[in-house]
């Protein structure tokens, strides 16, 4: 496996330790400034109902459930099928700076925000859902494919005719060389797409998230649990039902399943691009008034929200790392042996439960502050990284004289995984930043909170500007993490982002 090589990068260790300490320190510095207050509450009645609902899943309209499940898969599948060729094309043109910038900027916007933007044009339709997943995923594929290609040996290319063009080089050497790795990544990304698809239901697309959010919001926890269980099972069984041979059948079924797209007039599209997303003053040609409008939004909302978001992200990132290190051995054959099944279950639940639900439960426990946000983000992302790390831990070659128990965890597995583990964390950095957007219910004014408010108040000019600020922040974080990765030797993790 080409992946393993990268998990076993022989680093000096010192650099990695230094980098980890740096992150820990940055989180410690954030603590006094971040708002992590705990409020006393009496959560037990509500928590009891949630727990009871979780173990007594109930859904009375199976047809509705089947429909939502079908739509969830349909959106995810078609979006990935379309995003792969686009991402591949971009990856082939990766030497152009403009392509790298484009990929970074489309990646930087959360699926939910893409969805909210496209909803203004196409309503709750197939087009909105597909584009909302397809666009950011193309950017992700482009980046990861390009990274995979750079790791391939250049030797086979030497056998091609000297006049061969770029596309022949990819078609006859690089893609076949990297095929296993590429398809492994696409598979992993499909699981992410199922999550994205489900979560798009929160803004109204007819996927599982649609009913899940409603049931949860209305306190019908048994129904929410039924949907969650279905989703867990869907994710857990991907490797059984996602057979390459069946793909054409799935694609046709998915096209048939998608909801119809209502007609959109070209005039509306043009109005949205040329008027709605720009402030009044700019449309009137009053440049100085427009500048002062942008400056006002920046100082009153974007800047404080940016600090708040960065602080939460930093704390969540470090806690994510800690949780991932704690939970990964539970799901690894090398460490948990045949007792790994419950551990796998835990990792599945952690990574597949939307953060919004963790946040609500923790809100009941701790009261409204940054604390539930940080813990919710860390549980979800820790579960995800733990799952990836467990997978890689299993691929390690074992020897008869390997240590066992704690010694194996502390002195063999974890050190071996650590460079890749850090790389994962860096990838998740930008993801956590995007996800901190969901925390409006906690009364924390992150960037996402203001973007959501702007959409709710129909101020698309403000929403668009704040999304741009978020995207720039994301691009910045992405380039810092790339640099840190390069310096530390946590170069890359087989492209699992």
């Amino acid at each position, binding site marked *: 496996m080409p992946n393993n090589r990268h998990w076993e990068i022989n680093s000096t260790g010192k650099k990695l330790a230094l980098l980890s300490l740096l992150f820990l320190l940055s989180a410690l510095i954030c603590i006094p400034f971040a708002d992590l207050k705990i*409020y*006393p*509450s*009496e*959560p037990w*009645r*509500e928590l009891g109902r949630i727990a009871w609902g979780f173990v007594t899943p109930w859904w009375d309209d199976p047809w*509705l459930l089947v429909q939502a499940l079908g739509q969830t898969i349909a959106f995810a599948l*078609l979006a990935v*099928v*379309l995003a792969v*060729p686009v991402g591949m094309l971009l990856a082939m043109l990766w030497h152009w700076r403009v392509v790298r910038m484009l990929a970074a900027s489309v990646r930087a916007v959360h699926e939910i925000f893409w969805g909210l933007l496209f*909803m*203004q*044009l196409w*309503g*709750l339709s*197939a*087009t909105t859902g597909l584009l909302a997943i397809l666009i950011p995923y193309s950017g992700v594929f482009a980046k990861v494919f390009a990274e995979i290609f750079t790791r391939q040996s250049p030797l086979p290319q030497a056998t091609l005719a000297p006049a061969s063009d770029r596309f022949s080089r990819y078609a006859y050497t690089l893609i076949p060389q990297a095929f296993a790795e590429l398809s492994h990544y696409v598979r992993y990304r499909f699981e992410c797409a199922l999550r994205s698809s489900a979560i798009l*239901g*929160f*803004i*109204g697309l007819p996927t599982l998230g*649609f*009913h899940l*959010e*409603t*049931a949860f*919001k*209305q*306190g*019908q926890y048994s*129904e929410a649990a039924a949907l969650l269980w279905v989703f867990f099972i869907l994710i857990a069984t991907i490797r059984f039902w996602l057979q390459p041979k069946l793909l*054409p059948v799935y*694609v046709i079924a998915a*096209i048939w399943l998608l909801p*119809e*797209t*209502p*007609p*959109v007039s070209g005039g*509306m599209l043009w109005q949205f691009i040329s008027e709605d997303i720009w402030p009044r003053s700019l449309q009137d040609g009053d440049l100085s008034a427009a500048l002062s409008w942008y400056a006002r939004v920046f100082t009153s909302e974007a800047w404080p929200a940016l600090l708040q978001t960065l602080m939460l992200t930093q704390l969540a990132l470090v806690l994510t790392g800690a949780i991932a290190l704690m939970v990964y051995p539970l799901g690894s054959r090398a460490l948990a042996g045949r007792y790994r099944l419950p551990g796998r279950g835990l990792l599945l639940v952690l990574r597949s439960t939307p953060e919004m639900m963790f946040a*609500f439960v923790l*809100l*009941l426990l701790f*009261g*409204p*502050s940054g604390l539930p946000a940080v813990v919710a983000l860390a549980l979800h992302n820790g579960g995800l990284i733990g799952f990836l790390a467990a997978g890689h831990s299993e691929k390690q070659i074992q020897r008869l004289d390997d240590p066992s128990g704690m010694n194996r965890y502390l002195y063999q597995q974890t050190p071996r995984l650590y460079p890749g583990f850090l790389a994962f964390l860096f990838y998740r950095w930008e993801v956590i930043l995007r996800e901190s957007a969901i925390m*409006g*219910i*906690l*009364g924390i004014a992150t960037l996402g909170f203001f973007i*959501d*408010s702007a*959409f*709710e*108040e*129909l101020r698309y000019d403000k929403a668009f500007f704040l999304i741009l600020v978020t995207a720039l922040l994301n691009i910045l974080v992405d380039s810092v993490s790339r640099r840190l990765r390069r310096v530390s030797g946590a170069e890359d993790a087989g492209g699992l982002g």
Partner: protein
Amino acid sequence: MKSITRVLSLLAMFSASLLANAETFVFTAIPDEDESRLQQRFNKVADYLTEQLGVEVKYIPVKSYSAAITAFRNDQVQLAWFGGLSGVQARRIVDGSEAIAQGYEDQFFKSYIIAHKSAGLTPAETLSDALKGKTFTFGSKGSTSGRLMPEFYLREHFNAAPADVFERVGFSGDHSRTIAQVQSGAYQVGAVNYSVWDAEVAAGKIDTNSVQVIWTTPTYPDYQWTIRGDVDARFGEGFKEKVRTTLLNMTDKDLLASFPRQSFVPASNADYAPIEDTAKAIGLID
């Protein structure tokens, strides 16, 4: 090559569905009260309208106030059951659109301020200064009863924005969530739609020992049916009037329970001027 054909046929299907344009009259409703089974309940309303209006009527569900407004603006729906604020917002961006009917109860709607017992607040005729420094949650950001009117009266009493009055201000996103969060003490105080609260009390879902109503807002106009101005041109002369009459004549208790209202009464854009003024006063619209 095969994948390219697949992509092309997919794109062809999209554009085909883009062009399909049957004359169906579509309506939506903001997701506010008892959101679950909305589809089933409103499909019955759609059947009733189809029967009475003589055109095919369809209901589409939405998840948020802004999604309802967007669908209305984009002509993806021609009729909508809006809240006070969302109706005002929608009519501002769609020329010629009109409020045609409201629920009987909507002529004198109100909000409750509810508090957890740990806040130490008691029911009173006026807002208490003891609210200062508590944690507080609104419902959805675009809600009239869960946000707009409570915020207006809070600003009026304290002469300050909620963020400056309370230690923390959250948006639960939903009336039921507001109740759950205040009942558990996660937030000490919250603002909630009176009819959702009364319904949950009647259903025995609320432990009135831990959470109670401490203040009631003055009444204001809320939910209404708003219709686009161009429906007569599309569905025939007099169509708007026909829709209005059909709504006003809705007497089936089962259908009315979807809203839930006892009946519908006539309404006009002017009825909602107070809502528009309030929204302007607190800076929600320009």
